[in-house]
């Protein structure tokens, strides 16, 4: 084999197999750090051997067994210096076994579950998942989250230490634990997605990357574990992603759902999401992600904002509120209700939700109330609510949107006087 072809194969193996090989090496070596080192050594060996000896039939297996033996070798050398290591005894005796496909798949799932373990702080789960499962570098994660790189580095170091010290097992949780553990994993994936989708500050490229990574992680979980919550989350992310390009204009200003150019929504993503929702609905165990995806799918199917099937959306929100009676879900339901029953009912419902608490510092609650007040002609009240919303958001695009609304209202009230 010629050298360029071997390099192409090496690049391809890196993209296709590096994350899976790492997941397997973590299981075999029982340590993140040893596994990363082993993978590095395996790629160094591949760069040297593949051009000379040809690309192995199964690069993944080659990388895993090479990495593993390089590590055993190094441990042997260190043992001579430092006395015997317990890991040595466990590893030295075992012969290389064939890698069964199920086992490979389980390794990636194990990795997701350990990175998203509830014993770790949410920040640490996100950083660890992005680095170990998605393969981002510490610096890339830091840029995406607008946090200094040493902060992310320490989160990762501490999370790994915690996994080691508390002997958190590297395994797919058993059936009884699975729902809670999966919930934590899906939450991490959704947080990653929202970080990329919700925020409009910071370098846009890296933010979009977070969405792409979250969708990839979501797809991985769906492929490995046919679970309807995971399917629902993937559908939900795809439906949001389909609208991404139409949410912000070239100047970086927000475009509301009612003003978005629906012809530019990603049809392929919407269609994929629809068939995922159908698949999830077959299971009859309908969770909040599937419901939110179903709501987003109704928006995606509507030819215009006015022609949206609002009663159906309200009905889905009613089910969602029963499942997840959080103030934010109730607020969204109230906004949909305003479309079927008018702004007066919307305003009453929004204010009712706001008196229940938990939304005082949520700018969207004040913005939603302001919108109802504006539509009802309560200009003074609307001005106060928009001003409160403006105080609560740090995002430049959201601030500009609220400022435009405020100046429009002031102009209108001035014209009337």
């Amino acid at each position, binding site marked *: 084999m010629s050298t360029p072809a071997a390099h192409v194969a090496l690049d391809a193996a890196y993209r296709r197999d590096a994350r899976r090989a790492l997941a397997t090496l973590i299981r075999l070596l029982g340590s993140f750090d040893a596994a990363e080192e082993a993978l*590095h050594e395996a790629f160094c060996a591949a760069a040297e051997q593949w051009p000379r000896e040809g690309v192995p039939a199964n690069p993944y297996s080659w990388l895993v067994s090479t990495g593993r033996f390089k590590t055993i070798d190094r441990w042997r050398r260190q043992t001579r210096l430092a006395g015997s290591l317990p890991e040595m005894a466990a590893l030295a005796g075992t012969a290389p076994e064939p890698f069964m496909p199920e086992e490979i798949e389980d390794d990636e799932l194990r990795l997701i579950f350990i990175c998203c373990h509830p014993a770790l702080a949410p920040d640490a789960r996100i950083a660890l998942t992005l*680095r170990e499962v998605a393969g981002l*570098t510490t610096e890339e994660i830091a840029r995406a989250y607008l946090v200094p790189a040493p902060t992310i580095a320490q989160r990762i170091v501490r999370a790994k230490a915690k996994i080691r010290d508390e002997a958190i097992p590297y395994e797919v949780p058993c059936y009884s634990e699975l729902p809670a553990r999966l919930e934590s994993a899906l939450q991490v994936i959704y947080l990653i997605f929202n970080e990329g989708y919700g925020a409009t500050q910071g370098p846009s490229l890296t933010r979009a990357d977070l969405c792409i990574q979250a969708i990839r992680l979501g797809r991985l979980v769906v492929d490995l574990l046919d679970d309807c919550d995971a399917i629902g989350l993937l559908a939900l992310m795809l439906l949001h992603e389909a609208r991404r390009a139409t949410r912000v204009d070239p100047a970086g200003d927000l475009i509301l759902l009612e003003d978005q150019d629906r012809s530019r929504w990603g049809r392929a993503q919407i269609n994929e999401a629809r068939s995922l929702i159908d698949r999830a609905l077959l299971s009859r165990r309908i969770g909040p992600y599937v419901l939110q995806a179903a709501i987003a799918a109704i928006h995606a199917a509507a030819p215009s904002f006015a022609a949206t099937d609002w009663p159906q959306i309200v009905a889905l929100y009613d089910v969602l509120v029963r499942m997840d009676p959080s103030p934010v879900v109730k607020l969204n339901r109230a906004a949909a209700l305003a479309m079927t029953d008018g702004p007066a009912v919307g305003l009453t419902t929004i204010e009712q939700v706001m008196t229940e608490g938990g939304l005082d510092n949520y700018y969207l609650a004040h913005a939603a109330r302001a919108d109802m007040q504006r539509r009802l002609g309560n200009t003074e009240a609307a001005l106060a609510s928009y001003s409160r919303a403006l105080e609560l958001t740090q995002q430049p695009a959201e601030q500009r949107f609220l400022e435009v609304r405020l100046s429009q209202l002031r102009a209108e009230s001035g014209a009337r006087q």
Partner: protein
Amino acid sequence: MRYVCLIYFDPQRVFDQSATSNAALAEVGTYNADLRASGHIVTSEALQLPNEAVTVRVREGKMSTTDGPFMETKEMLAGFIVIEARDLNEAVQIAGRDPFARLGAVEVRPVVDYSKPRPKL
């Protein structure tokens, strides 16, 4: 990405002839050989003690030199390793395996990327 691992230690501690210190010193060669074998190392040097050093300053066109720095702080810069690593966490892992990390401290500093704007302080 390229990083410099700056090794700091207290020579009184490192050269105290204790079993711990001697064991760590004996490992330095293997550590360096491993880094070379894995392709991480760019270059590395160990430094003589600061009492062999001269510090140079130029002020208003005039050069002044002083001996030292004298060891006011116990930990002194004792050497450096320039490494190539995938990211800061890999660099931290590599630094963590340095035997001197057990006796002193290793500071991991990313090298300057000149394609990025200068820091605003």
